[in-house]
Each structure stands twice: as C-alpha cells, then as structure tokens.
C-alpha cells in the first residue's frame, strides 16, 4: 500500500488530495462490519493489534459527518440546556443522574466562555473525521518501518514517539488546517443552537448574516472580506507548502 499522506507522495500532498488517500480511504471502509483476521492486522501493522468489529466502531464514530449541523444542532440545543437543579434537562440532568452535579453549568449562555460550549457539538461531529484521517495515515506506514524499529530494539513507546508519529505530522497539519478553517467559518451550528442576536456566540460568520438581515449590505460584505483574509492567512501558506513539496519531488 502506498504511503497515504507522506508529502510528495501525491500530486498535492497532505489532506488536500491524492488517489493514494482515496485508495486508503476505500480500503478503510472495505471490510466494514467484518471481523478482521489477526494476520490481516499484523500485515497492516495495526496500531495495537486488530480490533474486533473494527468496521462497526469506525462506521459509528464517523456517522456524524453524514448529518447536517442543523439537524445535530436541534439535539445539542436540548443537551446544552442551561437549566440547572430541579429544572435541569439535557446534559445537566445527566450529570445529576450520574452524581457529577458540579459539572452542571449554563453552557452557551455563559457570557464569558459561551462560545466554547459550541465547540462540544463541533467536536462530536468532526472527531470521527480526524480519526479517519489518522487511521489512513497509520495504515499507510509501511510495515518494514515498524520492523526496522523493533530490530533496533525500540520499545513500543519509542517506536511511536520517534518512528510513527513523525510520519504522521503531515496528517496532523492537514487535520489542523481543515478543522481550523471550518471552525473559522462556523455558521450552521451556531444558528441552530443559539440565536444570531446572542452576544456570547457571535462570530464573524454570524455578524455577516445579521448585517445582511438588516439590509446593511456594505458592512455584511466587509465582514465577509475580513473573514476571507483570515482564512487566506491560514490556507495560502498551506497551499504554497503543498505545491513546494510537490515540486521538490
């Protein structure tokens, strides 16, 4: 199997791209639901040996990616209900039921850190995707590399720390860039959970909508342009880096 995410391996490297990634992705899903044989896991150099029902775990971890933020926002609005004590429902009620009362809080209604509560559903929805990226990365590392490390007497921890994780730094970079720029543009989730007028959950994307709703098109377009600059500051160095790696090939 080709190295999925190693820079220079694919036309544009990283997460943007490559048929190798696509193949790894397809291979990932190929045995969905199947119980993976031990030899299979060995051959791939599974992270920690084969996992029974791996396909089931993987499919469930990843399913939130197939759901819209608006739909998941409906249930997260309920889960992140700010009522506490007698009136509590959602996660606050769950915390009471399992004896973790001190964890109760008013979530996105908190004026100072309310926006951080919005990150919880975002994490719920996106971490399966990051998992899939890293899984493809791990599966793409040739077994010879692990063998060589073990031959040289590396412990499992050292193998991960000095051999496997460094191989995955392009994957980590891609994941940070992709999730980062999605978060900068966050709109659907906030609209579904909070309200556009809520001060504590206001971000540029929401501001842009609020201006447009009050027919202040100029300000709205200005917010959009600022957002473009912020995202570009993140994306352009990344794209340049990718095309350099490609040229260096």
């Amino acid at each position, binding site marked *: 199997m080709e190295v999925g995410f190693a820079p220079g391996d694919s036309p544009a490297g990283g997460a*943007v791209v490559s048929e190798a990634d696509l193949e790894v992705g397809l291979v990932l899903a190929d045995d969905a639901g199947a119980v993976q044989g031990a030899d299979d896991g060995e051959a791939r150099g599974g992270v920690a040996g084969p996992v029974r029902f791996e396909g089931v*775990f993987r499919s469930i971890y990843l399913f939130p990616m197939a759901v*819209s933020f*608006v739909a998941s926002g*409906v249930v997260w609005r309920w889960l992140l209900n700010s009522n506490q004590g007698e009136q509590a429902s959602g996660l606050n009620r*769950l915390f009471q039921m399992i004896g973790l009362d001190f964890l109760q809080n008013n979530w996105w209604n908190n004026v100072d850190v309310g926006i951080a509560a919005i990150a919880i559903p975002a994490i719920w929805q996106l971490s399966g995707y990051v998992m899939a990226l890293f899984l493809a990365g791990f599966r793409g590392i040739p077994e010879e590399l692990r063998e060589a490390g073990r031959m040289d007497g590396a412990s499992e*921890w050292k193998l991960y720390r000095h051999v496997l994780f460094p191989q995955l730094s392009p994957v980590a970079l891609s994941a940070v860039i992709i999730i980062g720029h999605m978060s900068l543009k966050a709109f*659907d989730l906030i609209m579904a959970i909070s309200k556009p007028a809520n001060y504590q959950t206001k971000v540029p994307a929401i501001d842009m909508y609020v201006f447009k709703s009050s027919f202040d098109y100029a300000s709205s377009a200005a917010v959009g342009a600022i957002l473009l600059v912020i*995202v570009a500051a993140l994306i352009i160095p990344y794209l340049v880096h990718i095309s350099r790696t490609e040229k260096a090939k």
Partner: protein
Amino acid sequence: MSAPSSTAPVAVAPTTTPSAPKVRSRFSVGRTLKYLVLLFFLVVVLIPVYVLVVTSFKGPGDAAAVRAWNLPEVWVLDNWKGAWDALSPALWRTIQMVVPAAVISSFLGSMNGFVLARWRFPYADLVFTLILFGMFIPYQAVMIPLLQLMLGAGVPSGVPSLIILHVIYGIPITTLIFRNYYMSVPEELIEAARVDGAGMLRTFGSIVLPISIPSFVVVLIWQFTSAWNDFLFAVFFSSSGNGPVTLALNNLANGALLTNYGISMSGALLASLPTLLVYVLLGKYFIGGLMSGSVKG
C-alpha cells in the same frame, strides 16, 4: 483514540520479544482497556442519537424535565406526523435541488479533472491550485456579490439559485477527486487513443468516461450529501416558502418562542434520513469522498 501506551504491547509479536509470557499477560489487560475506551466513545457518540429517537416518540405530557432521559411513557407518532406535515414540501424541493446539482457538478468535475490530469495545457498546475483555493474560500466572502449577481441575472431565489450555486461551488472538490483518479489512469491509454486519431472530446467521451464510474459514485454521493446538508446558501438564497429542508428544519426548531422538542427532533431525524441511508448503504464511497480532502460547511 485509545492511548498507545496502554495498548501498545498488543502489537508486539511474541516471537520478536524476549519476554513472551509477560507480554501475553499484559496482552489481556491492554485489550480490555482498549475495548473499554472504544466502548466509552461509542456511547458518547450515540448519546445524541438516543435523545433524538426517544424524544421524537414522546407525547406532550411526557416532557417533564425529571423524565428527560427516560424512555417515553407512551410511544406516540404525533411528532413524526407533525414534522412530516411541516417538512414534506421542503423535502421534495431538496430532492429537486440536490439531484441536478450533484449530476451537473460531477460531470463538470470529470471534464476538468481530465484536462488537468491527462490533456495538459500551459499553467495547468496554477489553474489547479486556484481551483483548490475555491474549496477553502469562505462562502461568506462571496455571498453579497453572489446575491447581487443572481438578482441582476434574474435567477429566481430558491431551487434554481441553489442548483447553480451548488454546481459552481462543487467544482473544486469534484475536479480534485477526478483529477487524482485520472492521474492513476495509464498514460498509454490516452496515448493510444491519440495515435488512433481521437481528439480531446472523443478521447474523453469514448475512453475516459466509461472507466470513471467508481469516481462518479464517490463524487455523486459526496455532492448529494453536502448539498443536502447545506444551510449557508439556503439561508441567503431561499426563504421558508421555497427553501430546502435544512432551512425548514431550522424554522421548525427555532421559529416558535417555546421550542417543541418532540416535533423538532422528529424533524431532525426526518431531514437526516436520506443522507444517513446513503451513509449506511454506500458508506465506503462516502468515506472515499471524505478522505480526498473534502470539506464540509
């Protein structure tokens, strides 16, 4: 997600380790821990699903905060009926919008991908990088100009506007997937067609298109899912009377002063069923699109 340190010994083949028996005993501890961690996250991921399903079957008298996490006292279908009444016109509009949007943008993407990969022209790489940037561009930055463009061009809001937008903004990702696929097509195949006198269009139509079916499946599914789940374009280019299901769902859930969670959660499930069905039936193609760097939102 399992901690590598706790589960690492599992990967050690007994033959390569001097202390095989010790590894064997730690093997089961690591294994148990691994499955416990996996199961914990499984529960975390499924909690919202439990809430959605349970609440969607609860009657109005069953909404007390104390019973928030319990199963319904009486399973009722009223919420589903209400959600269906509220969302069915929007569901139908979404289908009308998503199908042409997915088909057209896939076709454009395959043509783009072909020229960028196998029928090269000067500065093809520059063009490709620019197209890639289109994948990352915040749509908010182009929203106001797009609104004015659509208005000026006289494109009616609702389904027609949304089809055009999803086709255009689908081009980057579809081009990317097809380009990468065509890069793996042997150069000789294209050369042979060229030697036999086939032009660009002929080569594309008779040689390349027939072998593109796997990529078409990936791209169609990807475009279907992302257009179905889109909310941003829907908010700006349609209204409750002519918008897709995400907009209708948001109005249903956030429209009233006091949210009826039973109906809105039935609605959320209803609006997610098509994409979930695609995910369950054709999951591996969906992941294929996901892994090619596609971006949601």
